[in-house]
């Protein structure tokens, strides 16, 4: 995967509690591309800014290789035809990811936006996404509250911390039946909630959830678009947070990978 040189590399370095950086580059985080994926380059860049090595994965691959984690990025896989994520869910590599996520090894998997939709279609995460209640595509900087910092992807955040990352989607309204929602809340599996404004009618302001083990996390907003100083939400409209609020996802999983390898 060819990438531009990193900008703001020093400023984007993870803060307190950051893992031993010399060990990080050995960590491989796969970024899967489907036909119609848009944000794979940004996700790979976020992985590299966090200190790990991104590995390009193709949906038709039949092996995950030796990746330590996988990011399913945003976009419009298969044009959102049928339902968002519905066709991508049956790609050959998704079967490997589903097996690895459910295995004892508990492969960390992060689904962003369309990636979140693919994870619900795959039944790795409960519920589903339907069209935004206002029916419009929405693109804005969105404040989120970290409700659970015990997942593989959120341990570098403080519980209750508010972060600002971009949100851009049309089918972002998270829904599930009341029983499922109650169970998610009771088990602490609501990982992110929208703060101040619910941009799509999601039940209980839910922006992101996890599986029981915490290795699989999905959310609609885009942390990979908030990882570089000068190119994040703060630079645009100053609604709070910092330009690099999204970087914690990637440093969290790195800490987990490096910690487990010790």
């Amino acid at each position, binding site marked *: 995967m060819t990438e531009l040189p990193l900008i703001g590399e020093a400023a984007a370095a993870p803060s307190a509690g950051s893992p031993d950086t010399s060990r990080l580059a050995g960590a491989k985080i796969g970024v899967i591309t489907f036909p119609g994926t848009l944000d794979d380059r940004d996700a790979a860049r976020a992985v590299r800014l966090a200190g790990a090595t991104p590995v390009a994965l193709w949906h038709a691959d039949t092996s995950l290789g030796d990746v330590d984690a996988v990011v399913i990025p945003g976009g419009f896989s298969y044009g959102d035809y*049928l*339902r968002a994520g*519905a*066709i991508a869910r*049956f790609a050959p590599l998704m079967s490997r990811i589903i097996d690895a996520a459910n295995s004892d090894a508990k492969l960390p998997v992060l689904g962003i936006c369309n990636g979140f939709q693919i994870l*619900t*279609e795959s039944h790795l995460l*409960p*519920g*589903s996404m*339907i*069209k*935004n*209640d*206002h*029916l419009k595509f929405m693109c804005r900087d969105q404040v989120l509250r970290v409700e659970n910092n015990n997942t593989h992807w959120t341990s570098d955040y403080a519980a209750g911390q508010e972060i600002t990352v971009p949100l851009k989607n049309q089918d972002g*309204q998270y*829904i*599930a*039946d009341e029983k499922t929602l109650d169970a998610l809340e009771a088990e602490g599996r609501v990982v992110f909630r929208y703060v101040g404004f619910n941009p799509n*009618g999601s039940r209980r302001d839910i922006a992101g959830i996890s599986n029981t083990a915490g290795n699989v996390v999905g959310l609609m907003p885009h942390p990979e678009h908030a990882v570089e100083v000068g190119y994040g939400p703060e630079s645009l409209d100053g609604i709070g947070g910092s330009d690099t609020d999204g970087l914690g996802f990637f440093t969290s999983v790195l800490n987990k990978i490096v910690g487990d390898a010790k």
Partner: protein
Amino acid sequence: MPRIVVDVMPKPEILDPQGKAIVGALPRLGFTSFSAVRQGKRFELTVDGEVTDAVLAQAREAAETLLSNPVIEDVVNVEVVEA
């Protein structure tokens, strides 16, 4: 050639934003008799040959696994239509 028609609807308890937008537009065009609209999907599966019980069973399975998402949708009809 025969076709199998599969109809999929959003579950009754799921808000259907598209249907809501349509019901809002109807009276603006003078169609004032309709109090609610729900929008679903119709699939037409063409079969090369005879629709056997096995083929119909395959269509039902496809309807439940790929054509619909049971979290938000119901398969409300699977029927054979001759061309």
